[in-house]
């Protein structure tokens, strides 16, 4: 079974806004490998500016949900996210949880679904990839050029 592909909002917001990364994302749909994270979905809903956009996002989410292509954080993932921030703070200095919680939850979603995680924010995601690896959670990051 080919790996599923999870795109974070650094890819999907420009894709929906200006068709950036169109070939990459459209291919994921065509090959039926596209996986949506509810955390990314939340960020997409925040970007809707019209009733039409909201309704179409509803349709997109509903269609993907019906075929099981939506991944959502488990309760344990929130605790893990807090631990990742604590681990980072102990090693490298203070950071703010709310600035990073979504990225960590998205990375954990990719780990749960054994999906490749596509992001423009390679540096941020690789930080969490490294710390998650220390807890036995391997995430594959695919860097997308901005």
């Amino acid at each position, binding site marked *: 079974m080919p790996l599923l592909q999870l795109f974070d909002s650094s890819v999907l917001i420009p894709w929906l806004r200006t068709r950036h990364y169109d070939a990459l994302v459209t291919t994921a749909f065509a090959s039926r490998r596209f996986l949506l994270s509810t955390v990314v979905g939340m960020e997409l809903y925040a970007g809707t500016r019209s009733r*039409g956009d909201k309704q179409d996002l509803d349709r*997109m989410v509903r*269609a993907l949900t019906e075929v099981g292509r939506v991944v959502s954080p488990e309760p344990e993932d929130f605790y893990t996210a807090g631990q990742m921030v604590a681990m980072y703070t102990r090693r490298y200095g203070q950071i703010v949880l709310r600035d990073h919680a979504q990225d960590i939850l998205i990375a954990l979603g990719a780990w749960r679904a054994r999906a490749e995680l596509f992001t423009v924010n390679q540096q941020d995601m690789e930080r969490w990839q490294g710390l998650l690896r220390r807890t036995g959670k391997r995430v594959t990051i695919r860097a997308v050029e901005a």
Partner: protein
Amino acid sequence: MARHPHRVVKKTLRLDPDKLAQLQRLLQTTNASEAVRQAIDDTLAYSEALQAAQRIQRRGTFARD
């Protein structure tokens, strides 16, 4: 994330048995009918999801202030 139950009917289809077996293995289904149903469901769902996304792109209002 359960799939929605749909009405099903019997249809006689001419299919390549090797490809059908390959599809069943790929989708990890317990029988050939389930494999075909899942392939159809997935294809239609992804098509619907992509079309909805493309309408958002064409509207040109997403994430614009």
